[in-house]
């Protein structure tokens, strides 16, 4: 793999693919898109409820945020959320340090 693509570009490609996969699936399958929308609505509502508590303000702010991020900016929000998931769950370390190169991802006999 080394020499075919610089590792940094390969790494960026991996992250881009991870970010784009849900969008592709959402384009291919309408059900998946609706599942994503419902999931993001619940996520946004719980985020607002955790801060503001229950009440009418929570519903109003949740509605505004859902309209902005989930309905209008869906194709921007989904890749960013996927990147956030990968980074916050610690999967980015596995991806970065698992890349083929001279570091930890290289097998012992690969140089010979």
């Amino acid at each position, binding site marked *: 793999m080394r020499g075919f693509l610089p590792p940094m570009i390969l790494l960026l490609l991996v992250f881009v693919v991870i970010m784009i996969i849900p969008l592709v699936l959402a384009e291919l399958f309408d059900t998946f898109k609706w599942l994503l929308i419902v999931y993001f609505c619940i996520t946004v509502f719980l985020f607002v409820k955790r*801060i503001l508590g229950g009440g009418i303000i929570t519903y109003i702010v949740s509605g505004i945020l859902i309209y902005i991020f989930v309905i209008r900016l869906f194709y921007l929000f989904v890749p960013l959320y996927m990147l956030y998931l990968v980074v916050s769950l610690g999967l980015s370390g596995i991806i*970065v340090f698992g890349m083929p190169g001279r570091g930890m991802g290289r097998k012992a006999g690969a140089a010979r």
Partner: protein
Amino acid sequence: MTILASLNPLDWLLKPATDILDTVNLLILGFKIVVLLFIVQFVRGRFGGGPIVTILILVLGYVMLFSNLAPIFTTAMFIYLFIIFGFSMLVMDLVIAKPWAGGGGEEEGGHMTGKQYAEALEKRKSIGGRMR
């Protein structure tokens, strides 16, 4: 009338630009609401509830989002969100650790078995080199 308007080349140029500007403005509005929520969380976490706290939230929200100091505070808030969401760790991994750029390669003998080391030693002796 609509057909004539769509034939205007200026519309073809301006339409994507206005769309992008609309999207950016919407993104900024969403970001400001999220920042306001973080301000609410911070102030309520420190001072609890009550009318004075609500006034404090409104003042802080105005200063951080709508006053002349808003660009400074929003930039700081953006960096803060960048850090707490963990993107800084990713950047540090890429810039400082550089996992593909060395550190434990075969040349330094970090992951070599005894057999591989002996083979490498023999090979270097045969070409007149010196094993480190």
